């Protein structure tokens, strides 16, 4: 183990330079996010991820944000275990009817000010699952959404670009 740790001290890091925040996301957020709330939260955001019926593809890419290449914590984002600790709900999936109440309760348990980011094509409008008896069809149909990050699934880079728009790191 010692050898491995020493090697890591000498090697240059794998972490890649920060991408620019997504223009599209900035435009979507501009009208919605209160400047005061942004100042109050500063540059540290606690994210609670909620799977509301995804195929688990989005979860895999959200997980990747924590790896050495993307290292999301360097921007002040960190994933938390409870909605009560969260500033941002990162919601995936077409919102299944069976998850609707759980999502509503998670939203209610998150203290204000809070933002909701809907991830993936399903999170926007149900994606390939739209029209099913078992899906509500989009996060926005259940709780207010501040930002959409499309993709099936969005790549970690796309996720980062969207999330950075929340912090407006320019």
């Amino acid at each position: 183990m010692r050898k491995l740790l020493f090697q890591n001290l000498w090697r240059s890091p794998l972490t890649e330079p920060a991408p620019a925040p997504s223009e599209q996301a900035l435009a979507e957020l501009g009208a919605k996010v209160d400047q005061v709330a942004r100042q109050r939260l500063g540059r540290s955001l606690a994210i609670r991820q909620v799977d509301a019926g995804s195929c688990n593809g989005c979860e895999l890419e959200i997980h990747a944000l924590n790896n050495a290449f993307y290292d999301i914590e360097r921007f002040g984002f960190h994933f938390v275990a409870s909605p009560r600790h969260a500033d941002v709900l990162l919601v995936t999936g077409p919102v299944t009817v069976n998850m609707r109440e759980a999502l509503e309760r998670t939203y209610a348990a998150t203290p204000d000010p809070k933002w909701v980011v809907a991830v993936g094509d399903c999170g926007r409008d149900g994606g390939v699952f739209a029209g099913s008896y078992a899906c509500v069809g989009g996060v926005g149909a259940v709780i207010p959404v501040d930002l959409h990050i499309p993709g099936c699934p969005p790549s970690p880079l796309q996720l980062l670009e969207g999330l950075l728009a929340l912090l407006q790191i320019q």
Partner: protein
Amino acid sequence: MNATASLQTVLEAGQPVAEHRPWPRVIVTPELWTTLSEGLARGSWTLLGLWGESGTVHLAVYEAPGEFGIASLPCPDGRFPSVGRLHPPAQRLERTIADLVGLQPVDAPDSRPWLDHDRWPVRHPLGSATPPSQTLPPYRFLPVIGESLHQIPVGPVHAGIIEPGHFRFTANGEAVVRLEERLGYVHKGIESLLQGASLEKAARLVGRVSGDSTVAYALAFARAVEAATETEIPVRAHGLRALMAELERLANHFGDIGAICNDAAFALMLAHCAVLREQVLRASMACFGHRLLMDRIVPGGVATDLPVDGIAILREFIAGCRRQFPPLVELYDNTASLQQRTVDTGFVKPALIQQFGCGGPIGRAGGRTFDARCQPGYPPYDELEFTIPRRTDSDVNSRIWLRIGEVEQSLALIEQILERLPSGPVHGALNMPGRMGEGVALVEGFRGDILVWLRLNADSTVARCHPRDPSWFQWPVLEAAIENNIVADFPLCNKSFNGSYSGHDL
């Protein structure tokens, strides 16, 4: 019928269905259905799937070493003899049939709904699809009797980046006395969406039954369509499909090995394995244009060929893994404090593994040898040399070592595939016979064997398609794995299984 009759003999007593490939499908009487249930209970055969459609239930059965078949029982009065009464692995599948199709298993030991949480606007969406006329009784968890017991309800929203499901623990102090799972939260109604879908739409849907296994699902769907239409695909497509399948296995195994160790608070392993996983996804992106390889395998072949530098990219990637992975294996092997958490934790009796027919690393870490790449087998694996790692210690440690063994096999398989990758087209037209046809395929995903059964309409739309995730036969065994372990070891046990919620809930 003689109690030790072979599967073939039993199926020959039924009425064969024409246009079903490649295994036989026969219409059986209730007596034959019961004979099959008894054979499953006796351990002569393994349950591969149990699903329904309006008026019929289907049972897919495997007899070692290489016999497969499907028995179909017409249920004119909406009832069928319960298989779960004799063979517990069928119980959740029967509860699902009752929820989705409305066919009732007679004398079933558990009549509670499973996927239906009494929230959908319809009852029996694959059957009568009528609005609910009355509410279901509240869901009752199994009773637990004893002194000093306490319950810990967990979920559906879990404390991490994980899929949703509910776990009801009953513990005596630290020791778990019973775990009961309640799933169905991510039920998306995929089987209903598949009815009437075009092949293109259906392939996209089946590729999203469980995103981590998108390649294996797309492959199983494509193979079932090709079986139904008697289509031969170009040989190069077989090679490319296997490349993608092994890349998917590598990505998931790297992720799982790291994540299991992380659940024992050994974050170093996760950090390094996550780098390896990312390298797989980047190689996949460079070679096939999608990090998770979604929608790359389609009926008739594959959607994208390797770029000119594809082989070089993959060779370099393999060389990188061969440099970086062995030190991590050594790290695991030499860290006693980590093994202290994994050895003997989450032990499952091999007899239970056998009874449930657990596939994938769970099954092969617990004494099973089954691997769909060998049996029933499909190209190009019949021409490749590989061994199937197998262990019998059946604990968390065993499941880690099994994945390590499979990583090494997959690396070698990719090298072999690259060496003999034939040139030529990667996609061919499907035979469109203009009549109904049925096909079935069994494919080895990273989690285990995935079954896809389908019936195509004369206009090549999907009449009915049933994808069965390996998790159906793994989730129930997790309940046994955690028994008498401490509550704090549940994440470790759960991660060593890594069941799919989405694949199970459909």
